[in-house]
């Protein structure tokens, strides 16, 4: 289109970019300030960085984070990769059920798994530990989930679905004739696997690994649920401790800002590595022409074993945690399930101690966020996408990078930057601290990368002349968008909308940093009960949350199926 059009789109697209630049700018600027930061009395120094590197806990947190990420990656790929291969390349039965289970796995929040596994394997209260010490008369608990490896294991269970989705696409796109050529020239099953399949799959696997490592480094909810109460810190939970210390200490915002800047640099480097690995993979992009049909490897009765593997995974990662949460909500104190415990189950504990005001406030705020954030995200992402895909000016490269940036920025850091912005820059002029608006703004920023990418690829499928035909026929820009683009993009817009709604609904990273009395969200209510030791109330709120989540998930399902069919 010509440059004179679409000022509205320009403004809408520039808005999130502006916020991102401001957030990063504030973070960098405050990381170099000490004294009374955010005022003219602030001193510009490197003190924050020096304090950070000399803090004895930071080394331990870094070490823990590495162990945690490696474990999470190994577990998630160890589960996700074989299931992806089995589903895409073998004769295993009921494959659409595998996709259904894995998508469901993606939607059930990691905090569920984390809570469930705390009940199972906590050093003191964990049921497995209680049973083991009882049966084998041990003096010490054999398992401790509140370790970097334990938390990594739980995170891995929760990320396995993602590992599956990322690698299944790769197996699907791989040209089977390359494997057939190896077979015909005398390589056996394992020879083909080792010399052809795996080397071809390597770039995609490596890319998936980097992707999951990045999530592992920045993730907050699982380490916070399991580790914080036991004072096992990762980098992300260390940031939280610095920003929210106990009552007698001051928040060390300068240090969190400095750590944030370093994390952004690391995240950008990893993301750059990720995209260059992906490009590497494109070189092997063994093109799948028309009439391409993968020959499936006959695994015969091993199909049953494969299904057993998937079922064990889903029980360990999702079913047991959900059942234990339900159990924990109704028992008066935490003890392994027994006839006696079942007879003690009642609603009394919940009814007596639950602060219903708090729960309702959380529910109301969360519902508001679910209504507002996905809609705003869609409008902004649509504007950005349109300018990226249809635009001709160089600004589109800027937009492309800008829309991609939040994807690389850890949510913890965006949350910290938002706190710093509201406390030290906007201050009392625009009192955003402790408001729902601040949370909503950060949510939109964190969701915009995914939304933009999804709309980009959908928009690329729509021939430009369909829009031009409308313009020449006399339809204005807005009408063209509304009558032509929006209907054609509807399947994508719907699934992005619902996906964003689900992620906003269950969000527990940004929320933990930004909530106060008035703007608390439902997941943050769970978090505050959990953190104060009221596990039964935390479990009860989790159940309430699940009741609301289920219809959303079903909706996602339904639209997902519809958009698949219409393609």
């Amino acid at each position: 289109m010509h440059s004179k059009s679409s000022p509205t789109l320009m403004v809408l697209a520039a808005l999130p970019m502006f916020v991102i630049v401001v957030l990063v700018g504030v973070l960098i600027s405050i990381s170099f300030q000490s004294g009374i930061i955010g005022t003219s009395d602030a001193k510009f120094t490197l003190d924050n960085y020096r304090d950070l590197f000399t803090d004895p806990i930071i080394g331990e947190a870094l070490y823990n984070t590495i162990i945690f990420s490696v474990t999470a990656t190994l577990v998630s790929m160890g589960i996700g990769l074989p299931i992806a291969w089995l589903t895409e390349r073998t004769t295993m039965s009921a494959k659409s059920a595998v996709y259904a289970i894995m998508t469901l796995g993606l939607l059930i929040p990691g905090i569920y798994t984390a809570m469930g596994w705390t009940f199972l394997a906590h050093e003191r209260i964990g049921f497995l530990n209680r049973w083991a010490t009882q049966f084998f008369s041990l003096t010490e608990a054999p398992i401790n989930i509140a370790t970097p490896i334990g938390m990594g294991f739980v995170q891995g269970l929760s990320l396995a679905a993602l590992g599956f989705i990322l690698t299944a696409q790769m197996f699907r796109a791989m040209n089977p004739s390359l494997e057939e050529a190896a077979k015909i020239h005398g390589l056996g099953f394992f020879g083909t696997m080792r010399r052809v399949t795996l080397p071809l799959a390597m770039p995609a696997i490596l890319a998936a690994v980097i992707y999951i490592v990045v999530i592992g480094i920045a993730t907050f909810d699982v380490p916070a649920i399991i580790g914080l109460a036991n004072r096992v810190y990762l980098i992300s939970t260390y940031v939280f401790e610095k920003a929210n210390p106990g009552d007698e200490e001051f928040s060390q915002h300068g240090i969190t800002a400095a750590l944030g800047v370093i994390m952004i640099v690391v995240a950008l480097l990893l993301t750059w590595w990720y995209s260059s690995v992906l490009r590497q993979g494109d070189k092997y992009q063994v093109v799948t022409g028309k009439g391409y049909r993968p020959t499936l490897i006959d695994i015969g009765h091993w199909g049953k074993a494969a299904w057993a593997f998937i079922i064990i995974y889903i029980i360990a990662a999702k079913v047991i945690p959900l059942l234990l949460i339900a159990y924990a909500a109704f028992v008066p104190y935490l003890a392994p399930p027994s006839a006696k415990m079942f007879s003690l189950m009642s609603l009394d504990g919940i009814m007596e101690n639950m602060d219903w005001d708090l729960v309702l406030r959380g529910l109301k705020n969360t519902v508001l966020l679910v209504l507002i954030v996905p809609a705003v995200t869609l409008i902004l992402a649509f504007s950005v996408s349109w300018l990226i895909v249809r635009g001709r000016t160089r600004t589109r490269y800027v937009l492309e990078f800008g829309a991609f940036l939040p994807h690389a920025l850890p949510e913890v850091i965006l949350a910290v930057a938002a706190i710093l912005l509201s406390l030290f820059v906007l201050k009392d002029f625009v009192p955003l601290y402790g408001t729902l608006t601040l949370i909503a703004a950060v949510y939109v920023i964190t969701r915009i990368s995914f939304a933009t990418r999804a709309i980009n690829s959908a928009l690329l499928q729509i021939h430009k002349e369909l829009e031009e035909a409308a313009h020449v026929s006399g339809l204005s820009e807005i009408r063209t968008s509304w009558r032509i683009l929006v209907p054609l993009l509807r399947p994508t817009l719907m699934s992005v909308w619902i996906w964003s709604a689900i992620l906003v609904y269950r969000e527990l990273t940004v929320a933990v940093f930004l909530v106060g009395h008035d703007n608390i969200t439902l997941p943050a209510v769970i978090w505050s009960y959990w953190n104060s030791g009221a596990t039964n109330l935390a479990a009860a709120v989790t159940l309430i949350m699940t009741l609301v989540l289920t219809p959303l998930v079903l909706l996602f399902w339904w639209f997902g199926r519809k958009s698949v069919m219409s393609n």
Partner: protein
Amino acid sequence: MISISHLMKEFTVTDGKVAALNDLNIEVDPGEFFVIVGASGSGKTTLLRSVAGLETPDTGSIKIADRTVFSNEPPVWIPAQERGFGMVFQSYAVWPHLTVYENVALPLKEGAQKIPSNEVDGRVKQALEMVQLEEQIHRPSTLLSGGQQQRVALARAIAVNPSVLLMDEPLSNLDARLREEVRGKIRELAKHLEATVLYVTHDQIEAMAVADKIALMSFGKLLQYGAPIDLYRNSNCAEVAEFFGTVNWLPGELDGDVVKTKIGEFSASQKSIDDKNVWVGIRPECLAFPEEPYNSQPNHILADLKHSVFLGDQYTFEALSSDSVLHGKSRSAPKMQSDRLHIAVDPDDVMIFAADDSNSTFINASMAAN
């Protein structure tokens, strides 16, 4: 009706800038079927899109019926949706989420023209009748064949009673048989509606079949425009002559009224050149076989037949005369006179071009390619 003057547009490419439109001046009369033709990259589509308002030229002006829709001095820019044109796109751009009826009705209902809603129904039906699609009126547009979609696009374009109809390679996605049929119908329809049409194609036969006037573009420049027969017979340069059909090129020297070449002398009935070095151009179908024996008069050639091929409606042949290959076409088989071929050319069919840089460069490249 359409008045284009000094239109310029440059595109930035990786190694510098490319002029898509290079100082273009064109006048299209009301009711005229005007075809812009040229190879890909000639700028023809950029020109059409500039008239449509989908592309902004750098400088110059475009006027439609005395209304300036673009000009850089003073700056004027009327957006596409306010120009009131109809346009048929190369991909048809039939909106896939709407039915046939809705595709035609949407511009009427929600376009800039604001047609009264009680008229919409009649206008849609009338337009669909004109393209013989009234039976498909309520079908989803995705269920139509390519030819039917093309007609929906056409109906949508004419339904708004546009002052100007723009068509961007409207036939290029149809198969060859359908193309011939549809191009005749498009011309018929345009004449019936008395519409001014600006039509872009890369196909010279299609251009000649539909056009009142043709403009030939090459690398952003307008080479020549006029009636099809003028461009074919009175081409103003070698490139125009060869665009509309194969030409046998012979270098020669002008000597009085005749041109001397290696294979004999030629004289043309029309000649407006005083250059000494010239190119003689003769089209394959202009090589004739006279009854009388060869007598070294101007416009007579003695050649050896290399080979001839029977193609049903015609013979094609190659003849060799003093190292020059002549390509020919004829209704009857090449007629031999004692093992040799006597060829004669009508003076009306002899084209003479100055052997200047642009003609010579073009002809040498063209001959090297064959």
